[in-house]
């Protein structure tokens, strides 16, 4: 299962990198003679309302979606790791306060808050990544925190204390390497969320207008008359790509989770 996921992901990563060289057309150039053209030998997946080749758009958009996915997931995982680590290790009042803050973030519906946040700080890739990261760290934080709390009592931590290692050293030198697999599993699953969030934001028109991403293709499909003109290829293609990439990461994440997540592991 995980292998299928890896294959899918690597395929898309390769696509993202070679897109400008492999794509048959430049998707930013419109072909006025073929608007809303159905799939044909000339245009593999047809064209959109501006005559741009959908297949080429698809290839170019892979890069954007993957970049946003990876970056946002990386940032939010780091944040979650930091918060979970500090909260789990120090415990006490710090832990209580942090947990309440996490609860607040968990309570608010992410989508709504994402929309408001992006509308406030404006469009642009960095802003989208920032917004997704700010709202996505809570799951990782919780998971890391419970792991750290159980790790804290282990003999090797006690031994480190005994030889006078500083808290910082223990946290990042001893505990971190041991929970790294869990961090990785969480990170992969965070990518799924990030990709879907970016698609959603773009679909609502809050994406970066200078780039093409799959969500944005769907946004333009929705607002530029794909339905009326029966351009099913324009609607189906980006969606299938989103599903495939998200599925790829989910499969890998699930496989990692099964191996590394102690809760899941002990239950098997």
């Amino acid at each position, binding site marked *: 299962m995980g292998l299928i996921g890896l294959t899918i992901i690597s395929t898309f990563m390769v696509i993202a990198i070679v897109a400008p060289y492999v794509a048959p057309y430049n998707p930013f150039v419109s072909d006025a003679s073929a608007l809303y053209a159905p799939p044909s030998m000339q245009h593999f997946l047809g064209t959109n309302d501006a005559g741009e080749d959908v297949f080429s758009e698809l290839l170019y958009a892979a890069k954007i979606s993957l970049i946003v996915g990876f970056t946002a997931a990386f940032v939010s995982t780091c944040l979650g790791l930091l918060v979970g680590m500090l909260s789990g290790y120090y415990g006490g009042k710090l832990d209580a306060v942090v947990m309440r803050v996490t609860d607040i973030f968990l*309570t*608010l*519906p992410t*989508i*709504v808050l994402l*929309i*408001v946040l992006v*509308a*406030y700080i*404006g469009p642009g890739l960095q802003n989208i990544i920032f917004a997704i990261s700010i709202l996505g760290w809570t799951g990782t934080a919780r998971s890391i925190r419970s792991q750290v709390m159980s790790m804290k009592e282990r003999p090797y931590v006690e031994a480190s204390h005994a030889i006078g290692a500083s808290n910082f050293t223990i946290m990042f030198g001893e505990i971190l390497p041991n929970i790294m697999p869990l961090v990785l599993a969480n990170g992969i699953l965070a990518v*799924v969320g990030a990709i*879907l969030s970016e*698609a*959603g934001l773009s*679909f*609502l028109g809050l994406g970066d207008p200078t780039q093409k991403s799959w*969500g944005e293709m*769907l946004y333009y*499909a*929705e607002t530029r008359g794909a*339905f*009326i003109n*029966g351009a*099913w290829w324009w*609607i*189906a293609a*980006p*969606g299938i790509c*989103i*599903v495939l990439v*998200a*599925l790829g*990461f*989910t*499969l890998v994440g*699930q496989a990692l989770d099964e191996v590394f997540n102690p809760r899941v592991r002990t*239950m098997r």
Partner: protein
Amino acid sequence: MPGDPTLFLVSDVRVAPQVRQTLLREFGLNLPVWQQFVAYLTNLSQGNLGVSFSLYPQPVLSVLLQRLPWSVALLVVSQLFSAAIGIVLGVIAAWKSGSKIDTSILSFSLATTSTPVFWIGMLLLLLFAFDLPLFPLGGGITPGVIFPSTLAFLADALWHMTLPALALTIIYIGSSSFIMRNTMIDVLGEDFVLLAEAKGIGERAVKFGHAARNAMLPVVTGITLNLGYVVGGAVFTETVFDYPGVGRLIYDAVIARDYPLLQGAFLFIAITVILANLAADVMYAFLDPRIKY
């Protein structure tokens, strides 16, 4: 936020600038922020959520209450259907764990959780509303029609709700069945299931009467929590189908910089989520006799 609410309302150049000033004064936007905040709290304590900027002069409370039933109906129906189907699929997959059926159900679940809601919505819309005119193109009810009876009204509303509900259901089936399958696999490994099988009460009774009832807990909790996100939870679906729910309202309000509406909506959200969490806790204690508070 960039852009102020009055620009949305009076963007037409033919409108005199004095109108904009009057609007600013009336909305209290020319007062310092802390003063606006105090005024808001004072109003709130009297149950007044203010007046909507973009749907002027409707009060926020009435706008929210008007849209709420649509969202609630949509989400409750989707959650119930997805839970029912998801539970059954999860049970089947767990019972035949490791077989082809299990793998296919699992793949289906993971695929649906990876799908964006709005895309499924768009596909459904394309297939069943445009290509085959079976369902309406959007909206909550057919506009401009006077319904002879409540039943006719409900029928029309349900007809409009079918596609959005279908889209939401498909998405949630995945997570329901996935959780159900995993919990079920754990439950099936427990001793009491072995005993039930040894008693010879029949496969179906063991599956549903004993194992499933125990395994259902996380799914049920999940549903209750999802219902908490009723307000704003279906933003994408409502946008695709132009469905008159609260999610769509929030999105429109953000575009229009309609602050009172947004504040009222967020208040609603906070209340519903807290209530849903409370309900989930209570229900969990009720369903699982091992938990005592």
